[in-house]
């Protein structure tokens, strides 16, 4: 079975960076109160195709499975059905060709900023001097050179997120997977980070899959915005964002093209959002911390 799909995978045209075919995911949930095991379908029939170097945004109501999908792409959760490809090869687990940037920064508190950025390079087996050189380069790219030898607790949220980006860039993955990376920073910092991210993206030519709650953010940043249905999530429609580049936030956001695209995405979310809370509610009486610790041990 696995063999068969990998043969299909090899035959896949490779001008696409990421391809998902009919991906589904069912969580098994153990209830603390009730004895019986239940399941929750988080994703159903998810199909996407992401081009090389594309900035691809994913929006959808809370609980529709955006994070779940990103974690599957990262190889941290195993899909229940369907097939996933990167550069035409099937995705089997985590690897350095993808870098995930989580909302909680996930910096290692006992490592200095430089050592944090070096982590992926250590896994890659890069020599010490080389690691240092590369890490400092990327710390410089996100504008935090003077913090290289500090510890994460000395940084603000926005700075930590920039370091998380530098860390993912340092080991040179083809794809950056970003899960609401700027949700926890204030509006002004977010705009700065947007400009910076676009600058870095243009410079490094990475493919970016960007999950967000914010319609504005998605439309401003992305080449295409995929709108998801409520739980169980699938792709409802993909909107082309033909706004041209480079984009300057103050200017673009006041154009009519921007508002129209913004409205289009909003509409799609609107008439899919009626049952938005049902999915989130379904899992509410389960012990989330238990669920999280289980999946962490996988």
């Amino acid at each position, binding site marked *: 079975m696995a063999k068969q799909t990998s043969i299909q995978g090899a035959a896949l045209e490779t001008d696409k960076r990421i391809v998902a075919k009919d991906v589904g995911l069912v969580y098994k949930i153990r209830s603390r109160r009730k004895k019986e095991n239940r399941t929750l379908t988080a994703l159903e029939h998810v199909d996407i195709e992401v081009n090389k170097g594309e900035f691809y945004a994913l929006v959808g109501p809370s609980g529709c499975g955006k994070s779940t999908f990103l974690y599957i792409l990262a190889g941290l959760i195993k899909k229940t059905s369907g097939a996933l490809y990167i550069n035409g090869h099937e995705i089997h687990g985590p690897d350095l060709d993808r870098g995930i940037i989580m909302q909680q920064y*996930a910096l290692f508190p*006992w490592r200095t900023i430089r050592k944090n950025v070096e*982590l992926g390079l250590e896994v890659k087996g890069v020599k010490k001097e080389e690691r240092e050189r590369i890490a400092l380069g990327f710390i410089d790219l996100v504008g935090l050179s003077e913090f290289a030898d500090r510890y994460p607790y000395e940084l603000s949220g926005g700075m930590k997120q920039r370091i998380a980006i530098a860390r993912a860039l340092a080991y040179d993955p083809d794809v950056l997977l970003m899960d609401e990376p700027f949700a926890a920073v204030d509006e002004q910092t977010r705009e700065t980070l947007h400009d910076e991210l676009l600058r870095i993206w243009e410079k490094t030519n990475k493919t970016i899959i960007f999950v967000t709650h914010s319609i504005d953010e998605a439309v401003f940043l992305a080449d295409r915005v995929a709108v998801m249905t409520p739980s169980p999530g699938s792709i409802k429609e993909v909107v082309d964002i033909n706004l041209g580049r480079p984009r300057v936030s103050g200017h673009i956001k006041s154009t009519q093209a921007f508002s129209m695209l913004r409205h289009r995405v909003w509409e799609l979310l609107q008439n899919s959002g009626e049952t938005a809370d049902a999915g989130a509610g379904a899992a509410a009486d389960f012990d989330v911390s238990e669920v999280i610790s289980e999946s962490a041990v996988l």
Partner: protein
Amino acid sequence: METKEQSRLFTAYQKSVVIILVLAAWSVFPHFMKNNMFLPPFLDIMQTLWEMVRSGEMGKHLLASLRRAGIGLAIAEAAAIPVGIGLGWFARFENYLDPLLTALRNLSVLTILPLFVLFLGIGEVSKTAIIVWGCFFPQLVNTISGVKNVDPVLIQSARSMGMSNFSLFQKVILPGSMTYTLTGFRLSASIALLVLVGAEMLGADFGLGHMIFHYQQAFLIKKMYCGILVMIIVGVVVNTLIARLESRLTIWQDKGNAH
């Protein structure tokens, strides 16, 4: 406005003034007692201590005690840390073992002292074993908590880079559980000293606990006090050293000056 030098002097003053007053009182007060046999003046005790140090008697006892406590603690640490990491990681096992661990942990060392004597006699083995027993559980429990409290987000982040299990263990689990493990170490070390004295009072040829007990029986009260004083000093030194180690190893932690 205070200068740094001044505030440092003030801290030293704050820390020493009460102790100096107590010792001064201890030096003077016994002279006014009708019978100060049970509470000799502090300076007399210091003189005895000096003699005991010079004759090498104190050194012999101190060394015997430190060796015993050190060996017991080392064995306990060497066992508790790996077992704790294993149990913390495979949370499933812990569910089975937890009731037993809770029961054993709450069993005071003194309660089962007779059991150790029964099985192992009153020799060196029995004394070391009881120290091992006393040190094992605090370290075990803290190591388990440490591993269980490693942020799952960090584990996922490390995994997302394709990190092997061995690297994950070395680069994430060990440093991530460090604070708890060190707390366990500090607890275990002070318990080692506590249990040591009890075990030595059971009977031994050398050791501070034995010495204190022996001189009390022999009514050599000044020498008994010397043993107690040295025990206090050992406790303080051990604690200070471990606190130093802790703050050196956890330099990356927000020590709260941001709040």
